[in-house]
């Protein structure tokens, strides 16, 4: 049972990470203005309606990854709360990645559906 739990967690973590990355690109692209981490996570919670369980802290490493791939840029801005805020914006390259990512996701979903169907998995 412990191994099954571990396997499930691993599978979920790996699927979630890619899916969240795609959602993050989508949300940041959808925002009309530069947007900071906390707001992005609020947007993510709203978009997934609590169905996608994730720890808030695991989103920031993904944002960092997206930035390292030049899909996002960031700058430090002011905040009424005092501490500096890191604002994110999508790059043109990021927009292409989002488009490609959404297509790949659709393709993968179709392929997986068809594979499972052919195997008789319901």
């Amino acid at each position: 049972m412990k191994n099954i739990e571990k396997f499930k967690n691993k599978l979920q973590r790996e699927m979630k990470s890619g899916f969240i990355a795609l959602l993050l690109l989508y949300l940041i692209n959808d925002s009309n203005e530069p947007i900071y981490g906390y707001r992005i996570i609020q947007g993510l919670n709203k978009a997934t309606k609590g169905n996608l369980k994730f720890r808030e802290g695991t989103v920031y490493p993904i944002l960092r990854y997206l930035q390292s791939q030049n899909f996002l840029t960031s700058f430090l801005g002011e905040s009424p709360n005092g501490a500096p805020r890191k604002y994110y914006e999508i790059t043109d390259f990021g927009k292409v990645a989002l488009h490609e990512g959404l297509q790949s996701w659709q393709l993968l979903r179709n392929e997986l559906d068809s594979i499972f169907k052919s195997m008789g998995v319901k």
Partner: protein
Amino acid sequence: MLIKNYLKSIEKELIDIDEKIKKSIIQEISEHLDEKIEDVKKSKKVSELSPKRLRKILEEFGEPQEIAGEYRRQLSEELIAVRGTKKSSKKQVIASIIALCVVLTLILVIFTVVDINDEKKDDKTIIPGKGLEVIQVGDDLDEVKDVFGEPEYIVDSNELIWVSYRYEKGIDFLISNTTDKIVEIRFNSGFNGALANEISIGSILDDVLNESGGAKNTVQANLTETTNVLLGSDRVLYEQIYKGNLTAYKFVDAKKGILYWFDLDKTVTQIVVFRPY
């Protein structure tokens, strides 16, 4: 204390991550937690959160080990510097010796002027256009460290270095990356000083306007316009609109070298001092 310990635990977990990256990670986590705490305080209409609620916020953020693991997974290999693999160059050795000499000199200076500094350190009067008696716009990082000690964190962005003493003292310094001089001093919640006219963190907008001679202009502005003061700076009151909602107020009095941020209750949340223009 709870938050500080939590951040320390994450820092410990990130032991093999490059120091500069580690600091910026801690900064982004601390930013998130600050935002969330403020949000919860507002929604619960309380001024402080109970340890139980703080623990819940941290739980929702994740276990330090889990967070560190995720950073490790997402950071590309070149960003992770394995400890001990960096070779010391001759330049580094010379720089260390110079730094040591500077530190020794500073210690000497500190000991000789300790009485004067102690007196100055106690003075927490915010001076518009300058800062505090003991540290002012135009001073450099070494001077900041002389007065306040090692910063809690430093974030190096393209043009500015953010030097923070936020949790212990409620102060942040913005230092120009080109001149190495302080360009802004930010007083936040936790700073227990005030201006000579008694305006401080927690004062209300009307009092600030009265003490400043009123707003010449009130503008509704988006995030970028408000952040960069694009719609004027001579006693201009910004009403920051984000996605159609009023999210904050900012009053800029650039001729005096001071600006104030307010939350939706029109309470001062931050005072920023800079060179007048």
